[in-house]
């Protein structure tokens, strides 16, 4: 196995240069997809037979909920890479993903609560799905707080990686909560092996919104990671040159 490619991947300078080229295109694509998905869903879909127009919240709620979990899993992977291979870029990625994941997890919980009021009749219930998502939010806060509390760079990296990995057990719980326990939250509409239980005119804007949010996350991560690289590598010549060249993004 050619490990040199893998190690090149861990070069902050390489990442900075490559990402700089891709960023504008990814950003434009993300903006277009986000605008399309959300406008289509909010304004151009029919209402649900049962829930009426409140279901339109789904176009924000599902993408952010998916991403809250997916980002955490990515953080766990970055944490594992940090601990096993000690690649600095992995720790930088973990640090940069955390605030994005936190904001999405927060939005998922909030949009869910608002949606719950007219549908279920309550803002909140301590069922397995909602409780495990709330735990995820606390895990996110924990990782961010832990980083702030530690001075040494290597200890920060290891502690945050370990906390993230310990918390990753929560992710399958979130996913399977609606099957394992009797929850108020309904089961999955989008399934891996079965047909989705959603009409196509609603399904397409939902899928576009989900893809848009994944792409948006990638763009935001790249921007944050590039800044983090400049910060940590500030004493190298290439950073000084890049900054002097007036790099915008």
């Amino acid at each position, binding site marked *: 196995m050619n490990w040199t490619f893998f*190690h090149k991947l*861990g*070069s*902050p*300078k390489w990442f900075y240069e490559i990402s700089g080229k891709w960023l504008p295109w990814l950003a434009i694509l993300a903006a277009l997809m*986000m605008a399309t998905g*959300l406008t289509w869903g*909010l*304004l*151009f*879909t029919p*209402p649900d037979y049962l829930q*009426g*127009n*409140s279901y*339109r*919240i789904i176009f*924000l709620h599902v993408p*952010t909920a998916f991403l809250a979990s997916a980002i955490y899993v990515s953080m766990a992977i970055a944490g594992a890479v940090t601990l096993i*291979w*000690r*690649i*600095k*870029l992995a720790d930088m990625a973990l640090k940069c993903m955390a*605030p*994005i994941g936190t*904001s*999405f997890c*927060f*939005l998922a919980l*909030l*949009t869910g609560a*608002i*949606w719950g*009021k*007219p549908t279920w009749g309550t803002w909140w219930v301590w069922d397995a799905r909602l409780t495990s998502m709330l735990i995820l939010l606390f895990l996110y806060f924990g990782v961010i707080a832990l980083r702030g509390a530690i*001075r*040494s*760079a*290597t200890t*920060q990296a290891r502690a945050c990686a370990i906390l993230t990995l310990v918390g990753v057990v929560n992710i399958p719980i979130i996913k399977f909560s609606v099957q394992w326990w009797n929850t108020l939250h309904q089961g999955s509409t989008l399934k891996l092996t079965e047909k989705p239980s959603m009409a196509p005119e609603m399904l397409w804007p939902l899928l576009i919104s989900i893809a848009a949010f994944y792409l*948006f996350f990638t763009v*935001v991560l790249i*921007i*944050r990671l*590039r*800044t983090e690289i*400049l*910060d*940590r*590598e*500030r*004493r*190298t010549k*290439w*950073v*000084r040159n890049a*900054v*002097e060249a007036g*790099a915008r993004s």
Partner: protein
Amino acid sequence: MYFENFASLVDMGGHGIYVWPTYALGLLVILYNIVSPMMARKKIVTQIRRQAKAANNRKKPASSDTGRKVNSHEQFSANGQQQASTTESSRTVNEGE
């Protein structure tokens, strides 16, 4: 559009009071994720430029006191992170292998 007029768009069959604030919150979170990274970048870039300028100004006086330069760099490191050395390469650092 599904809605026939502006009034029904706002009201959404009584659910507008839930849908519109939700989308407003969504917009806020999206904006946060755009503005916060850009502000952070601006701050770091300005900081690095300032440091580079200060380093250049210090270079001008004839003294070649490289020892002192290393110390003031560590002083400026904003995150309190201990950088191993100025000759640290920007590639992977395999510690204690």
